[in-house]
Structures are given as C-alpha cells and as structure tokens.
C-alpha cells in the first residue's frame, strides 16, 4: 500500500500548510470556501499534531510487535497495510475540520472523519468490533444527516455558508431549527449522554492505536465544532434553558460514565466509559461559559487537550499491557509492573490527569469551571465537577491498585524487541498532560493571538 500511502499521506499532510492561510477559492467572493484559523483552532491543531506524532510512533511499535509474534499469519500485515492510509486521511481531515470556515465543507470533512474512523475501528477482526463499527457508522451517518438537514434550513434562511458571515447575521425564523438540528447531529457524534451508547463498544474493541485516535481526537473534533457553534458563531441563538439542559446531560454523562467505568471488568472498556464521563465535563462547561470573558475557550481547550493526551496515553498503555499479558482483565493484571514499569507509570500519571489533580490541564479546567460556577452563582455545577473527580479517582484507582501489586509469584515475562516504541510514547503524552497546567500561559497567548488572525481568504 506504500504507493498509495506516500502521495496520499503527503497530499493530506499538506493540510498543515493551510495554517499559513492559503486561500482555497479562486475568487474573493462569498461563493468560495475559506479556511480560517484562530486561537482555538490553532490549539486543536497543536493537540492533534502532538498526539498524532506520538500515536504514529506507537503504532509503528505496536504493529511490528504484533507481526513479530503472529497469532494469525497475515492478519496483522493486512491491518498495518490499511492502517496507515486510513490514519493519514483521518489526520488530514481532522486538520481540515479545525481549519474549515464553511459549514458545508465541515459536513464533507465530518463524513471523511466518520468513514475513516469507522474503517479504522473495523480493522480489528473481532466480531464484536465489526458490530460496534457498523453501529458507529450508522450513528455517524445519522449525525451527519441531521447536520446536513440543519445546513439546508440554514441555507434557506440566510443563503450563506461561510462561518464568519453567519456570525454577523441577525437571528431569524428557522435559524433555531437549523441550529438545533446541527447541534443534535454533532452531539450524537460527540457521544453526549444519552447518545453515547455507540462509543464504549467501538472504542474498546478497536486496536489499541485506533482506540487512542478515536478517543483522543475524533470525538474532540465534533465537540470543537459544537462549542464553536454555540459560543462563537450562533451565540445569539443560545438560550439559558438550552445551556442548562446541556449541563444536565453532561452531569448525566459524568455520573453514568463513571459508574459504568467502575463496573467494567476489562481495562479498555473502563477507559472507554471514562471517555464518556470526561466528555461530560466538556458539556458541563456549557452553562458555565461566559462569553463576555475573552478566555471562554480556555477551560474546554485545557480539558480537551488534557483528556486527549491522557486518554491516548491510557489506551496506548493498555495496548502495551495487552500485548504482553494477552488479556486486559483488570483483576488479573497484578505483577505487570515488574516487566512494564514505564507503561504502568505512564498509566498512573495519565490517571492523575483524569482526576484533575494539579498541575494537569484537567486541574486548570476544573478550577476555571468551578470558579465560574461560583461567580455565576451556580455552585451546584461545582459540586458535580468535584464529585465527578472523586469518581474518576475511584476508577483510576481500580486499575492502578492492581498494577502496583507485586504478588510474590510474579512471573517475569521477557521483554520483547520493539518495546521502546510501545512504552515511551504513552509516558511522553502522560507527562505532557500532567504539566499542561504549567503551559497554560502559552495557551492563553495563543488564544489571544487568534484575534489578530481571524479568517483568511473568502470574504474580502
């Protein structure tokens, strides 16, 4: 597949070029499509970039490890063969999504992301993963269609597709419907409780690098859009009641996801449910976002980045453990520390980030959210966030406590070659997620930088 990979990967990675603001359209008119970049999208690109490099390294290690110890000859070669192009397209379309400045363009990019994510999650040959992938595909299509219907209504109302133009239009009849349809579509793709049902099986049954990609990047992409629509583009349409409902759903996600995570017997399912819970926080941020504050993006971006890094690290670590132990049943993971110390350490640090302990990105986010909750006299959201952190601590502890036990009869499994690439990328990401709080000033400066760069090309 290399002949396809090289031009395609090259072509798609070239999306990164757009950062310099090449205009896509020939004519500087509103018919054209424009790519835009600003602080939040730059940060999301940054996160995608860092995560993707690490995932790529890890995937290289992962597949060579699997191929070196074949259980079914040919299977892993096939997976490897298709993993790279799919992953490259996914990466390219993610970057494309963060740069998109046109709602229909976003639809096509969403489809690209959805299809490549589905194909990736179907790579694992397990029957359960096929079912999960099919369900994922249906949900993804349903979400896109709902979004497209929203576009139809929006176009009927305004005859505009450009995001920056849409930001300026006054609210009109029909816009609310369009906005609701688009939001529901995106929420479905972001797996907001109770529309999360497809996520845990799809994420838990995929190959380890794929789970990392899905959890860290794919759901974040649609969340990013959702947040942008709600607070950046269509802020006039947002009502306090809607925000409250979103917050409630987020609360539901936090509790339901955490409790389900506590009930799982498999490590990967636990991590997948914790994604549901962590996404809940992102939605609790909705009623706590004060648009008049300049930095309203900061808590969600911090949370998304921190969670992205940490979750990637966790899935990678669980993958490494799975490759060595051949299962991921939590109760039988004792003694792993003896031969995978770095992995276990990475998992622990990533867990610390999920709990939101300082100085992780999650801490900064939770701090800002609770602070906002008090300032807006909605302190109950603060309590929800704190309880959620405690639950997170509980499910992280469930795994970590097993990993740190060293029964006297631990059999030391010999480390195999390629382990470097399996062990160090997760540690890198875990540490990054831990010190994200310290990097917050830089994130702030990037966010502020945005205001100077808004919208390149398109409208003149």
């Amino acid at each position, binding site marked *: 597949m290399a002949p396809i990979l090289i031009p395609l990967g090259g072509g798609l990675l070239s999306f990164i070029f757009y950062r310099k603001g090449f205009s896509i359209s020939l004519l500087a008119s509103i018919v054209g499509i424009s790519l835009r970049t600003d602080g939040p999208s730059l940060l999301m690109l940054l996160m995608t970039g860092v995560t993707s490099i690490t995932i790529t390294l890890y995937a290289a290690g992962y597949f060579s490890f699997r191929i070196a110890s074949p259980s079914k000859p040919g299977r892993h070669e096939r997976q490897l063969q298709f993993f790279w192009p799919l992953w490259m397209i996914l990466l390219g379309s993610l970057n494309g999504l963060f740069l998109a400045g046109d709602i229909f363009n976003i639809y096509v990019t969403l489809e690209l992301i959805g299809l490549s994510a589905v194909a990736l999650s179907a790579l694992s040959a397990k029957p359960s993963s096929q079912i999960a992938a099919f369900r994922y595909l249906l949900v993804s299509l349903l979400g896109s269609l709902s979004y497209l219907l929203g576009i139809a209504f929006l176009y009927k109302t305004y005859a505009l597709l450009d995001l920056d133009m849409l930001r300026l239009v006054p609210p009109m009849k029909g816009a609310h419907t369009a906005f609701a349809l688009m939001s529901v579509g995106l929420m479905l793709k972001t797996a907001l409780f109770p529309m999360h049902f497809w996520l845990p099986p799809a994420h838990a049954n995929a190959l380890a690098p794929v789970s990392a990609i899905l959890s860290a990047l794919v759901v974040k992409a649609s969340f990013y859009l959702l947040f942008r629509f709600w607070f950046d583009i269509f802020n006039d349409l947002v009502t306090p009641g809607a925000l409250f409902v979103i917050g409630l759903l987020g609360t539901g996600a936090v509790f339901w996801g955490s409790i389900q995570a506590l009930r799982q017997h498999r490590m990967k399912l636990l991590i997948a449910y914790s994604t549901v819970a962590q996404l809940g926080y992102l939605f609790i941020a909705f009623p706590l976002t004060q648009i008049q504050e300049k*930095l309203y993006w*900061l808590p969600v971006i911090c949370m998304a980045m921190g969670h992205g890094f940490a979750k990637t690290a966790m899935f990678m670590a669980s993958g490494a453990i799975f490759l060595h132990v051949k299962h991921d049943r939590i109760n039988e993971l004792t003694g792993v520390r003896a031969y995978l*110390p770095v992995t276990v*350490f990475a998992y622990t640090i990533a867990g*610390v980030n999920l*709990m939101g*302990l*300082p*100085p992780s990105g999650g801490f*900064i986010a*939770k*701090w*800002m959210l*609770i*602070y906002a909750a*008090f*300032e807006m006299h909605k*302190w109950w959201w*603060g*309590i929800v966030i*704190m*309880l959620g*952190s*405690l639950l997170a*601590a509980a499910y992280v*502890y469930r795994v970590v*406590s097993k990993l*740190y*036990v*060293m*029964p006297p009869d631990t059999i030391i499994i010999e480390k195999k070659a390629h382990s470097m690439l399996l062990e160090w990328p997760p540690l890198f990401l875990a540490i990054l997620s831990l010190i994200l*709080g*310290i990097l*917050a*000033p830089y994130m*702030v400066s990037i966010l502020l930088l945005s205001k100077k760069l808004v919208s390149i090309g398109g409208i003149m």
Partner: protein
Amino acid sequence: MFAGGWLLVIILLSSLIPGLIIFSLEEDRHVFRSVLNMSGALLKIILVLIMDVGILFGQSYEVRLRLLVDIELVLHADPLSALFCTLSSVLWLLTTLYAIGYLENSPNRSHFFGFFSLCVSVTTGIALAGNLITFLLFYEMLTLTTYPLIIHRGTEQALKAGSHYLIYTFSGGSIFLFSVIWLQTLTGPIDFMAGGFSPALIQAYPTQMTILFLFLFIGVGVKAALIPLHGWLPAAMIAPAPVSALLHAVAVVKAGAFGIIRIVLDVYGIKNMQSLNLLPILGFAAAATILYGSVKALQQDDLKRRLAYSTVSQVSYIALGVSMADQSAALIGGLVHLVHQGIMKITLFFCAGNLAETLGIHKVSQMKGVAKRMPLTMLAFSVGAFGMIGVPPTAGFISKWYLGIGSLESQAWWVLAVLVISSFLNALYFLPIIIKSWFQERDQPYPDEKQFDTFETHWMLLIPPLVTACIILIIGLVANSEFSPLSWVRFIVEDYLLQ
C-alpha cells in the same frame, strides 16, 4: 522576583532530581543509589540552612509562576516555612540513612526510594508554598507520592490500607479544592501573609466565611488526622517502618497540621478568626482528638498502632496551640510542638522498626526484657516516650509548658485540664512499655531474631534514633539558647502578634 528566589527552586530540585534519577536506576545499583540519596539529603540541609540564615537577616525569597490571571504558583520563604523546611530536611537525612539500612536486600528499592525522595520534595513544597493554590498543588501531590509508599509491600492488607488512605485524602482534597476556589471568588488571589485578608470581607460575607473555614478545616483536617477523619492513619501502619516514620513525623500528618496553621494565621488571620468566633471550634476539635487518640492508644497492643494513635493525639496539640493564637505563649507552644513532636515521634518509629527488623517484635506484649538485648534502641525509645509524656528536660516538656502557660493566660481552664489528662494518659500507655522492656525478664524467645557483629542491630538502623534522641534532649535543655527551635518560633510569633 528576588535573585534569592532561585534558592527555593534549587531546594525543591535537590530531592526531586535524585528521586527521578533513582526511578530509572537498575535494581542492583545499590551504592550509587545510596550515595545519590545521601548527597541529595545533605545538599538539601545545607541549602535550607543558607535560607534560614538569610531569613534571619531579613532576606526575602520568592518565586512566582503565573498560570492564569488568577492562578499563580508562588514559592515563598518566611520564618514559618523555614521551620517546617528545616525539620523535614534534617529528618529526611536521618530517615534516608535508616531506610537504606532497613530495606537492605528487599525488592523494588528503586521504586521505593524514588517515591521517597519525591515525597520529601513535595513536603518541602508544602513548607515553601506561598499561597493556597500552591499549597493545594503540593498537598494533592503528597497524596499521590505517599500512596505507593503505603502499598509498597503489595499485600492485600496494604492495598486496603492504601484505598482507605486515598478515599480519605481525596475526599478531603476535593473539599479543600472546592473551598479554595470558593474563597478565591470572594477574596481574589491571596498570598499567605501574616494577618490574612482584610476584615472588610468578613463583614461582607460572615456566613460564607464561616462555612468556608469549616470546609478548609475539614480539607486539611483529614491529613492532620483529626477525629473523625483519622481513620486512614492507623490503617496505614502496614507500610514499612521508615515510611511510617516519615508519614507520622514529617510528611502527611504535619502537612495537615501545617495547613491548619497557615489557614488560621495567614489566610484568615488571628483577628478575623476572633471576630468570626472560630478559634474555640478549632480548640474543641483539637481537644477531642487529643483525648480520643490517647484513649485509643491505650487499647492497642500492636506497637505501631499504639504509636499511630499517639500521633493522632499529639498532632492535635499543634491545633490546640493555634486555637489560642491570641496568646503568644500558647501559639509558641503549638508551633514548637510541630518540631518537637516530629523529632520525638520519628525516634519512636525508628525504634519500633528496629525491634521489628531485628527481633521480629510487633506487639507491646512481646516486649518483656528487650532492653537487655537492645539497650541503645530502648534508650532512645525511652527518651522519646518521656518526651511524649512531657517529662523535663525533654523537648516535649517545653511544648506542654508553653501550652499550659497559654491556657492559664487565656483562662481556658478546660485546656489545662485536657493537657493534664492527656499527659496522664500518655504516661499510661508509654510507661508500661518502658517498664516491661527494662525491668522485666524475658520469658519467651524472640519471634525472629537476627544477629549482628558489632552492635545490637545494623549500624544504619541504630544511628538515626540515637541522633534524634540526643536532639530531643538538647533542644529541651538549651531551649533558651539562640539557635533552638523555641527561639525560632518566638521569632515567628513576634511577627504574627505584631499584626
């Protein structure tokens, strides 16, 4: 930022970097690890002493790292932090020496010493924290770094103790975080400063401030093991002896007590505490804990558990002293107990560890006649125990004396009664041990005896308790000299009472 500010960072790094290096060491690099550990500890002591001298001469140390507009990490050295910092660095040196001897030939030493060093860095961080956020940061990190130490043995029981510990401390931590943020929405960013925030705020939000204090108090009270939040401490006794020594004497418990001091003196300020009428609440909680801990200690047969309950009781003397913060004598007594209790308790734990390691003795009832086998260890133990009871001329006497004077000055007769009763209880649970070991004949073989050539036990296990025992006597005897903890505490208290 002052040029001296970097000293604080270096102090933190002096144990952090050895810790990180130790993590990556192979298990059998025994010598290198020990050298690294000891040199880190020595370096830290030297740096801390330099800082102390600087503070004495009025030098100010501060580093700031601004994360966001309202989130700022501040390292700041004032006399109070110097006190805690010096205590932890001196005791770290001794504990490291002890731990090297104690864990000889046991598995996972890299892991252990790595977390051990991190734990000390974090404790120093707590000492040097310049505002509540930084304090919170290190406070939560302390939980994380001590947890692996508690479950170091990896047994079912250790895990259970560990999960107890986490449940308590994380709940406390959450409440703490919650209330810190709440406080900050009311007061804006606040640094630790003698006198606390402006009294105008108290007038503006009296109820919220009272509730907040209770929340904060619960948050730090978990680590300070105030009843009913003390449940984790006796359970955590499952950890290896150096860990218990460190947990009880320096790190966790003291972090909680230190937190109480900071909140009362530097966040709320004595005047605000008085106007909110909160000091008696603190006093009652402390008194109840003192009595409860002593009674429970009396009932324990397991030596380490008895010591643990004794810690529950003794740490609350600090809170008791702080609760009478308007009287300089009481405040002096409370603060100086931070140091005295640390040194005395670590001595006791060292000795208990020696008994367990050398003779296999874990229970009080097995201790008949051990002083003949291990005279030096039991000598140190006796000094520590007398200190706890408050017999002159030990350090413990000094603290209790000042506390007593304070209670007389503030005419809080019930405090005096608590002091007397608890000293009596202390005597009740320590004296039998001393009598048994020195004056009774051995009637059964030792459960698990090991022989050593020159001394009664390994020299590395013997030196630390002897040194600390000497310190107990010295700081008791020369309490009035210029370099004793007592005069340092006076130096601190002057500062606060000037406000």
